[in-house]
């Protein structure tokens, strides 16, 4: 019986030839990531309690992204603890205020095709964009991984998500994944792996692809994966890492389901408050007034997103009464935006630039929402109170849709503001 790519990666990590769905196994972890929020401040006391240390600091990456820059003394202390942990255990791949963990794991090419990767955050699944099995877990799980290099898992079933066609102008991977989430609901992928493929995927760059794996968290999936192809290989090669394409699923692998989409038919969509699976075409809810527009998060503030926003904002201004905030997903993304003029375009249009980090996305950093505020955001979640007050409202959309709403002062189909070939 053929194996899916997820089964192959787990089999290798479990020192087995093959594995079957629903088996519970202990596996070796190739690389782990912890961040300032769920990391050292929660894990260190557990290590101390058991009198054990970090097993292999070279297989650990640490990122301070949730509490940077410190908003108060409590946040500053969390950052101090994180720094002290890196020093105590000799973790050299430690990045403070350099970007959001999921963005950095990809940008810095820490992840390689075929790896079994465990991260202390629910959007760890983003890493599946490089063809690894990227599993998000909580702090206690990460304590176990950090101390022993191992973890347990249940072998998942896989759903094949086959995407035909190509996205039209003004339509993005964000619109595609929101459409999929809208169709299947926020528990539609529960316990299973979403494996993406097809012509539309082959035609997308790594940054756009990563939105698909990132938002697998929003459909309840164990993770998302895009098996490494030529695009992956050249992305890693540009970063000095040589790999072969693959691993890929066998021709006769068994899938729990196959979901088919035609990318050509996808249109700009928006998720309404307070559920990210309440998805409607942007054109259907145009006219909803917004006071805040937020371009941020691992999901929606990569360089490619900043470029999209600039495309809409070029030569235009943010509407009176609207605050457009941009929190780049990494320092690298912002440097690139400065280099190619994107940053200047955003600022000339009136965007307020925040430092890189999670920012307002989890309701922790700069730019959170007050009661009654209505925001359109490139982030991934809009549960009640996620970005601040429980009485605020968050609409989710692509960088095009957020920039367009910032200009219009209300939700619009972003294609209204773009040159779309007839």
């Amino acid at each position, binding site marked *: 019986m053929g194996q899916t790519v997820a089964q192959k990666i787990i089999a290798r990590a479990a020192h087995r030839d093959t594995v079957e769905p629903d088996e519970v196994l202990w596996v070796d972890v190739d690389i782990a990531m912890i961040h300032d929020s769920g990391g050292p401040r929660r894990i260190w006391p557990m290590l101390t309690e058991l009198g054990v240390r970090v097993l292999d600091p070279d297989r650990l990456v640490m990122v301070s992204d949730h509490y940077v820059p410190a908003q108060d003394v409590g946040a500053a202390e969390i950052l101090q603890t994180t720094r002290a942990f890196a020093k105590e255990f000799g973790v050299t791949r430690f990045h403070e205020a350099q970007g959001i963990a999921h963005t950095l794991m990809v940008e810095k090419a820490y992840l390689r095709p075929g790896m079994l990767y465990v991260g202390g955050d629910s959007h760890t699944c983003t890493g599946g964009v490089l063809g690894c099995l990227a599993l998000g877990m909580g702090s206690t*799980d990460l304590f176990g991984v950090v101390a022993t290099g191992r973890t*347990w898992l249940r072998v998942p079933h896989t759903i094949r998500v086959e995407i035909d066609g190509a996205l039209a102008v003004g339509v993005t991977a964000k619109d595609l994944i929101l459409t999929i989430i809208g169709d299947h609901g926020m528990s539609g992928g529960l316990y299973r792996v979403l494996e993406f493929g097809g012509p539309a995927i082959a035609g997308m760059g790594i940054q756009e692809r990563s939105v698909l794996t990132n938002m697998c968290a929003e459909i309840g999936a164990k993770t998302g994966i895009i098996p490494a192809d030529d695009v992956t290989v050249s992305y890693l090669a540009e970063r000095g890492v040589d790999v072969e394409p693959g691993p890929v699923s066998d021709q006769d692998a068994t899938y729990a389901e196959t979901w088919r989409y035609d990318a050509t038919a996808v249109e700009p969509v928006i998720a309404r408050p307070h559920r990210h699976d309440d998805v409607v075409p942007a054109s259907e809810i145009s006219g909803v007034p917004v006071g805040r527009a937020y371009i941020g998060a691992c999901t929606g503030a990569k360089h490619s997103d900043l470029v999209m926003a600039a495309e809409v904002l070029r030569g235009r201004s943010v509407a009176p009464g609207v605050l457009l905030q941009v929190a780049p997903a990494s320092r690298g993304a912002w440097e690139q935006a400065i280099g190619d003029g994107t940053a200047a375009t955003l600022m000339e249009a009136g965007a307020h630039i925040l430092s890189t980090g999670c920012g307002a996305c*989890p309701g922790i950093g700069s730019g959170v929402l007050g009661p009654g505020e209505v925001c359109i955001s490139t982030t991934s979640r809009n*549960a009640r109170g996620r970005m601040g007050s429980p009485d605020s409202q968050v609409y989710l959309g692509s960088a095009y849709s957020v920039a367009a709403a910032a200009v219009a002062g209300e939700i619009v189909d972003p294609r209204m503001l773009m040159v779309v070939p007839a």
Partner: protein
Amino acid sequence: MTIIEGRVWKFGDDVDTDVIVPGRYLIGDVPEIARHVMEGIRPGFADLVEPGDIIVAGSNFGTGSSRDVAVKAMLAIGIRAIVAESFARIYFRNCINSGLAPVECPGASVIEEGQRVRIDLLDGKVTVVDTGVVLEAVPLPKEIASILDAGGLVGFMRREIEADHR
């Protein structure tokens, strides 16, 4: 801890960890965080719960952020088990790792708030004490049950370390 009995608090589908413990409280420690459990949808919940109570919920309980304080805060207010039609996978793991029993019970929606339920973890049965109705639950695989039995992952690893030294 193979039999757990208690009074039921009922919640719906897709209860998000941002609702269980909002991000703005994450800066604090567990006892402080615990005072705010569920406050967005059930203000004052932490004060209503008595030690030994049980949560019953719909599908995809604990979806969203991986914060495992969303489990530790439940333990801190006295919740002893969560029975749900299904769990978000990270929340399920966090329960096991922290020693809070997660009981996957596809028929859980018939249970009503205020009723008492008796859970048999090993047999995979949930009995509604008030009505005598018995519901099937998914029994825990033995590898996972042994972690829960040790009170969570820290206790499990302590057992392993002690076994190595013996």
